[in-house]
């Protein structure tokens, strides 16, 4: 087999997690976790509470230092980088607990999210150079475009904290999108949303991936997971217990035993 053929057969790996271990004191939250996210796909991590899903997110995005293991994004090692440096590489996350800039307007929230797209230098800012104003107008247009996309255009001038819960979650997505992610890590984005809001979010997620953004998703809403994912990985006690297509995962006895439960399996028929 030629080298070209090998490359064609090997899937395009965006993120590679190898032998990841994270310990809090004596407690091993994750032990020897390995998986990869392929470019352009939506990959979901599922598993019971405490399985290590959010912990893995925190390690990938630089909020936690792993005890062992390697995290590679497009061949570049993420271990040891600061969260801001990881974001600059295009790996952007959202948080499990709703997290917005509460006392800033919705518009300013997204403007802050555009931080990495802005190039103005401190000296230019202090001198009030015209380039700074020009860039700010461009960014403002971009912020409005992103707000329209998630459906918060009419809320632009309200404070982040004043939005109802479901809209705050959309704002989080808007902030993350503003950072121009190539790999987007979403931590339970629809938790607490009602079915209508979840359906709206799923359609947004479809448009997001259509722009070529790779998505790593942690979610408990199985309807959503099975509906949007290309592949699903099930974790339990810090280890991968199953990986495969949504259909295969739903039938996997280990997944049913550890997480989905017999009732879910029966309901799916």
């Amino acid at each position, binding site marked *: 087999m030629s080298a070209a053929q090998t490359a064609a057969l090997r899937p395009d790996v965006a993120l590679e997690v190898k032998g990841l271990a994270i310990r809090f004191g004596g407690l091993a939250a994750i032990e020897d976790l390995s998986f990869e996210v392929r470019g352009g796909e939506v990959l979901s991590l599922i598993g019971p509470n405490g399985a290590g899903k959010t912990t893995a997110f925190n390690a990938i995005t630089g909020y936690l230092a792993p005890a062992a293991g390697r995290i590679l994004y497009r061949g570049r090692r993420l271990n040891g980088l600061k969260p801001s440096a990881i974001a600059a590489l295009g790996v952007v996350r959202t948080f499990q607990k709703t997290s917005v800039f*509460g006392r800033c307007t919705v518009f300013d929230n997204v403007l802050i999210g555009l931080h990495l797209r802005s190039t103005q230098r401190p000296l230019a800012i202090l001198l009030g150079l015209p380039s700074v104003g020009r860039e700010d107008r461009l960014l403002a247009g971009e912020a409005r475009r992103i707000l329209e996309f998630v459906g918060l*255009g009419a809320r632009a001038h309200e404070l982040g904290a004043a939005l109802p819960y479901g809209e705050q979650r959309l704002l989080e997505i808007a902030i993350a999108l503003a*950072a121009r992610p190539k790999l987007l890590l979403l931590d339970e984005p629809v938790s607490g949303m009602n079915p209508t809001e979840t359906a709206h979010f799923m359609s947004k997620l479809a448009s997001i991936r259509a722009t070529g953004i790779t998505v790593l998703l942690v979610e408990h809403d199985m309807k959503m997971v099975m509906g949007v994912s290309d592949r699903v990985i099930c974790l339990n006690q810090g280890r991968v217990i199953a990986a495969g297509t949504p259909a295969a995962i739903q039938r996997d006895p280990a997944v049913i035993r550890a997480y989905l439960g017999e009732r879910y399996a029966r309901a799916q028929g």
Partner: protein
Amino acid sequence: MKQALIGAALLALVGLPWLVDPYALHLLIITGIFIVAAMSLNLLLGYTGQLSLGHVAFFGIGAYASALTSLGFSVSVTPSVAIALAPQPVWLALLVAVAAAGLCGWFIGRLSFRVRGAYFVIVSISFAEVLRLVAVNWVELTQGPMALNNIPPLTLWLPGLGEHTFSKKPENYWLVMAAVTVSYVVVRRLVHSRAGRAMIALKENEPLAASVGVDVTRTLVLAAIVSAAMAGAAGGLYAHYVRIIDPDIFLFIYTVTMVIMVVTGGKGTLAGPIVGGLIFGLLPELLRALAIRPEVQWIAYAGLLFAVLYFLPDGIVPAVSKWWEPAAGTAPATRADR
């Protein structure tokens, strides 16, 4: 209407030297200098949320750096080697003050990233106190408690006036007004820029700010440098106006004064330090004129301070702007709908 009011107020401010007596003018000059310092503190406290209780250190460094550069000095490092500086023009000395304070700001900014919260507060207080002790004890350089005397006033080349020395009160008043204006513009530009948004983001939600690429260290360091440089400029102006400085310039009470100005006016607002500064900078003197006994003066001061903090916890400016634009919560939304 609003602009006409602001214009009239500015005109009245420019014309003040013809209206008030020299002592009142002196108070306004000192208050103006402290307003610049309060504005610099506001950048750290109000926008990045870092409480530096040693802020007077930058003010004092600016004052000493500017005074020593303009007076010249000679310090012996070893019995045979001495470092000496001939007296320099005052404008250069002021630039040295800004640079020296900015450098210390860089140092404190790096530190504030490692030492957060209450620890940073303690470190910053200690920083100012150590500088005070250095100023007291390094007599060869600072004259210690004997103070640096005969500091020259600022001489500047001005278009239309030629070489001009700022020795009289009215011209110092206008100089300080210009300094307040420049500081206001600097802070305004900064907070409405990428850098300022990053500072506000850090104060509001640090993990989220980092997740969209805001570099925590760089942002804090930038805020600290600009803030310290501004405080240093204020200190320099102070030295060349009062023309005598002693180690008491590093006293904690001055930091407290700045904090009171920022917090009562409204931290994290552009006009806050100016409003708070004017009120709580001039209040002691007003009360002295009114009060029969000195104790009453400070009791009334404390009473007013508590009243502001209790009834307007966000400060005067946010409260007034709510009243000024009564529908602030709804009006912009309808504007966006249009």
